[in-house]
């Protein structure tokens, strides 16, 4: 009976949360030496299944077998001891400790009763070599980029004698090169016989890397597919259970010829971060910002919204020159901003959905003009319905929602202020295909109704699909402008690479 290729079997997993059945009889099987993608929309139960495997959530029913023995992980440490290592989407490391300390925290090699620092540093460096990361491991982690930090957390996970490695959205903060480097490491580990569970929203990556795929929907198992058995489109429709035409039927917002000017940025900049950015935007225009991570897209947005103080240049909004020193000034000028780092700059985790929605509007009204509970409820209910936020009620804490639904709440917070200009920084990152399409549809609808939107995204196809015009950023400067209509990914990439190409020519 026992299949020796199978390393991990989960059978009939059931988890009950207050009010919802998060998992209902889900089976999952992982083989030795395979990359197995776990797919589904947000709220489908992927994270819950992983948490159950790592002992964060307790199962109400079902069994987990690891190498033929039944296990019941009680906490992540216990799961790790059993051979199940996890790299979470949000980096779980201590920024103020050195890279080496982070890798060996909690299991420092000892020598004569003392921590053997030499050994720690040597082994850490060695380990990172495998990932082609050459850094000084004694420097604090905070000095390195997110990508390096991600590599460190993976190094840490694989160094403990892991049989099963879970990668939960490992690529969401990496650029293409870094993703390839990670994939090389994954291939290595696969060749060594490790079973890898790979969770990602990037379908290209799923098709590039995985051997098999398990799809969940609403806490149920929908199917298990071998790579090559299923097309990308089929996979998407399996995940969301909807017709594909419905999702991809998005039309760029029509640009009215006589639309007035919304925003004019004239040589704005913060020395050392972004410099000399000039552009203008019409009312009802969706302006895309493309460029690599760190090219100055986010910094430009933060400057317009007053998160960082603009030091050079002038900003004209709706025909008036304005001075924006802090977010409140921007809000008073009817600008809104959904930040890139939802967890750090967006959600107020312990507050309810209702409170998270009414907060920006309340901040603008001032604390002495409170909205009544009735108004708050009406506002929350309106947006929960309008954006189809999946929640039993408005008083659920926002941190208990899935990423896509959190993003919708933040969007609702800003829509409630009825802005003229909405800046969206990576609004679709880390959320699933269905929610992504919904947010794109919503953006286009708002533009059609006269709102101007600045849309920042790393995904070129969605930028091209939605934008009227595209501004390409490179190294903290504006590299150029393109028309959304008729623009191809190659055009944008050429512009991103532009200068280098020019130099060699």
């Amino acid at each position, binding site marked *: 009976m026992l299949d020796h290729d199978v390393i991990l079997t989960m059978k009939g997993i059931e988890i009950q949360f*207050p*009010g919802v059945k998060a998992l209902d009889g889900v089976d999952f099987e992982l083989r030795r030496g395979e990359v197995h993608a776990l797919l589904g929309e947000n709220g489908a139960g992927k994270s819950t299944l992983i948490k159950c495997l790592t002992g964060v959530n307790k199962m109400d029913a079902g069994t987990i077998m690891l190498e033929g023995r039944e296990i019941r992980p009680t906490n992540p440490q216990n799961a790790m001891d059993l051979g199940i290592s996890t790299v979470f989407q949000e980096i779980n490391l201590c920024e103020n400790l050195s890279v080496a300390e982070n890798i060996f925290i909690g299991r420092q090699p000892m020598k004569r009763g003392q921590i053997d620092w030499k050994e720690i540093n040597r082994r850490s460096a060695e380990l990172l070599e495998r990932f082609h990361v050459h850094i000084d491991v004694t420097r604090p982690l905070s000095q390195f980029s997110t990508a390096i930090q991600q590599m460190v957390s993976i190094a840490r996970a694989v160094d403990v004698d892991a049989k099963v490695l879970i990668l939960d959205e490992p690529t969401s903060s990496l650029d293409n090169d870094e993703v390839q480097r990670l994939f090389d490491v994954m291939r290595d580990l696969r060749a060594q016989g490790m079973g890898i569970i790979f969770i990602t929203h990037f379908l290209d990556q799923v098709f590039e890397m995985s051997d098999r795929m398990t799809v969940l929907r609403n806490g149920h198992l929908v199917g298990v597919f071998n790579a090559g058995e299923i097309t990308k489109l089929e996979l998407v429709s399996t995940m969301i259970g909807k017709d594909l035409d419905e999702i991809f039927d998005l039309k760029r917002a029509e640009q009215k010829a006589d639309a007035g000017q919304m925003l004019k940025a004239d040589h704005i900049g913060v020395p050392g971060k972004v410099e000399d950015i000039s552009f203008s935007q019409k009312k009802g225009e969706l302006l895309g910002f493309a460029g690599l991570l760190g090219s100055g897209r986010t910094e430009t947005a933060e400057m317009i*919204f007053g*998160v960082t103080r603009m030091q050079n240049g002038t900003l004209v909004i709706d025909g008036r020159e304005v001075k924006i020193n*802090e*977010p*409140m000034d921007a*809000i008073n000028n009817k600008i809104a*901003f959904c*930040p890139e780092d939802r967890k*750090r*700059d*967006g*959600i*107020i*985790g*312990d*507050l309810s959905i209702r*409170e998270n929605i009414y*907060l*920006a509007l*309340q*901040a*603008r*009204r001032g*604390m*002495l*003009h*409170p*909205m009544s509970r009735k108004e708050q409820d009406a506002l929350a209910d309106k947006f929960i319905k309008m954006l189809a936020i999946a929640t*039993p*009620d408005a*008083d*659920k*804490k926002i941190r*208990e929602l899935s990423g896509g639904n959190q993003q919708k709440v933040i969007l609702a*917070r800003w829509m409630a202020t009825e802005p003229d200009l909405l800046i969206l920084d990576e609004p679709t990152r880390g959320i699933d295909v269905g929610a992504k399409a919904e947010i794109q549809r919503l953006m286009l609808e708002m533009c059609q109704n006269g709102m101007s939107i600045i849309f920042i995204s790393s995904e070129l196809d969605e930028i091209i699909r939605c934008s009227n015009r595209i501004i390409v950023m490179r190294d903290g400067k504006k590299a150029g402008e393109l028309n959304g209509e008729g623009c191809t990914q190659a055009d944008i990439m050429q512009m991103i690479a532009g200068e280098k190409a020019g130099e060699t020519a």
Partner: protein
Amino acid sequence: MKSRESIFKNKLTWAVIAELAILIVAGILEPNFFSIEFNAETGMLYGSLIDIVNRSAEITIIAMGMTMVIALGGTDISVGALVAVAGAFALKFLRWDVTQYPTPGDYSVMPFILVIIVPMIICTLMGLFNGVLIGKFKLQPIIATLILMVAGRGIAQIATNGKQFTTGYTPYRFIGQGSFLGLPFPIIITIVVCAAVMIFVRKTAFGTFVESVGINPNASRVTGLKSDRIIMIVYTLTGFLSGIAGLIYSSRISSCDSNNAGVNYEMDAILAVVLGGTSMTGGKFSLTGTIIGSLIIRTITTLVYYFGITSESIMAFKAVIILIVIVIQSEPVGKMLATRQARKREAGELRG
């Protein structure tokens, strides 16, 4: 289905239960514990319960401010010193030049209004000082307030030339020793102050803003909240409330004692907040819980005195009871109880 919410509410429930349990134990051991008598001569009600509420006034008032300080993820350890400051300046104004007015009789050198207002203004400014250090200069709260914790008592000493003044001035003594509507006057002050703070916090958006900044300062700023201003208001308010508490305390003892007034008040105030269910990590807070927390602390102290437990063991006794209350309120225990409750409810639904 609001599981989290109910755990939070449970904390308040547990505080009430703890308070009642302590009172019941007291009632069993000493039936007279609950008796309240009216003294026609002073026009005041007497009894252990009245005494508990009366004596908890200073901590309750300070803890109102401390609740929001803690909700912001901070602490204010200067409140005890501010109590001493308020008392010192009040007595300074009552006696001014002690060589000229050597006996502490029924007089005040300065107008009574100054005796009350100036110490409160000084404490408010000291609170603002804390707020500026923490809100504008981003110092860690414990370090920032440590400055006035140390310097405050020094300032109090300077105000009174290092002497301990006493007073017999009746209007001043009324604050801590008088009565109104049969209740000791500190109780009246406490009721007014608590009501005012609660109205300010919950009838405006201030409470939500404080919670928001306490939970996620970055996101709050991006949402348009001026977190430094909110921080300054909270610390200033706490300074002001410490001033009121300082006047009550010094009036109770008819004197100022810069070395001993308000000693350990910061600890008791923090404890009252925590017992009331507000987490030290900041975020959601409960002012009602804090009031109950303060009552618990005072009830334990009164109980201990009442049964003649030796003064050496008071602290240990207090610690044990507080330990029990806090463990019951802790998250793992709360989760355990909530799960058990949910299971029972489910079982009931199945049967029904």
